[in-house]
C-alpha cells in the first residue's frame, strides 16, 4: 500500500512548496493531505492515519508544539512521526519539539535534498 503524508501549515504557499519539494526529492506518496493548523491536523490523522506529518510550528488556532503534545497523548496516533518545518529553528524550540516527540526538523528555506534526507529516512 502507498504511503500517506499530512502537510500542516497555515500558509497555502508553504504547503505547495513542501508538496513540490517532496515530489522533487523523489518521495512517492500515494496521498498528500493538508491541514491549516494543529487542530485540523489532529482531526485528519484521527480519521485517516498517515505515515508521516510535516508541520510548521508558528500557526494560529493550534501551533505545532501543541499539536505534538496532543498527538502524543493520543494512543491511536502517538507513533506517527512528525517533522517540524519552520523558520524559528533555535535550539529551544527544536529541543522542545524533540522532547514532545518530533522525529526531526527542517529550517526554511529548504532544498529537496534536505527534505529527502530527513523525511526519506523516516518512511
Amino acid at each position, binding site marked *: 500500500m502507498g504511503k500517506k503524508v499530512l502537510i500542516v501549515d497555515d*500558509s497555502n*504557499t508553504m504547503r505547495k512548496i513542501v508538496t513540490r519539494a517532496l515530489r522533487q526529492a523523489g518521495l512517492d506518496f500515494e496521498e498528500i493531505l493538508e491541514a491549516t493548523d494543529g487542530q485540523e491536523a489532529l482531526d485528519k490523522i484521527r480519521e485517516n492515519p498517515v505515515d508521516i506529518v510535516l508541520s510548521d510550528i*508558528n500557526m494560529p488556532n493550534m501551533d505545532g508544539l501543541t499539536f505534538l503534545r496532543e498527538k502524543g497523548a493520543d494512543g491511536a496516533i502517538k507513533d506517527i512521526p512528525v517533522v517540524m518545518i519552520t*523558520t*524559528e529553528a*533555535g*535550539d*529551544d524550540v527544536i529541543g522542545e519539539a524533540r522532547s514532545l516527540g518530533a522525529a526531526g526538523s527542517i*529550517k*526554511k528555506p529548504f532544498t529537496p535534498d534536505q527534505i529527502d534526507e530527513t523525511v526519506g529516512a523516516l518512511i
Partner: protein
Amino acid sequence: MVAAMDRAMLNAVADTFENLAFMEALPASGGRPETDNETLSAALLLHEPLQGEIRIAFSRRLMTAVASTVFGLPEQDCTDTTLRDVSAEVLNTISGRFLSEMLPEHQAFRIGLPEILPPDLVEKAEDWREWNFEADGHPFAVSLLELSQPDLPEGQEAAGCCSTC
C-alpha cells in the same frame, strides 16, 4: 556591523527566492519599487530577542511570477488571495533566515505572523533601514525597523544587530 547586516539580508533574500521560486535575487541600485495600486506589501513583527518589524514591498508582477512558479499555475490564474499568501510566506522565510544569520548560532528567536499591509502603509518611513533588490527584472525592497538591541547571554554578541553603526 552594517556590513554584517547587509550580508545577512542579501543571503536571506537570495536563498529564499532561489529555493521558493527558482529566481535569482540581486542587490539593486535602482531604488524601491514605485508605490502604486499594483504594489504588494507585507509586514512581520520581531518579538525576541530583537524587537522590531520587517516589511517587504514588491510589484504585483513579481509576486505573480513567484506564485506561478510555486503553484504551477499560468500567471493569469493567480488570484489576489494567492498573491497575498505568497507575499506573506516570502516575508516569513526571509525574516527567519535573516535572524538566523544575524544572531549567534543556536540562539532562539520569535517572530510574529506575517500580514498584508494596506496600500497607505507601503511608503518608506525615514527611520527604517532599507535594502533594494531585483528579481526577474522587477525591483523590490525589504525594510527593517529595529526597536531594541538583542538581550543575549553574557559573552555572546549578535553578528551585526546595530542600526546606528
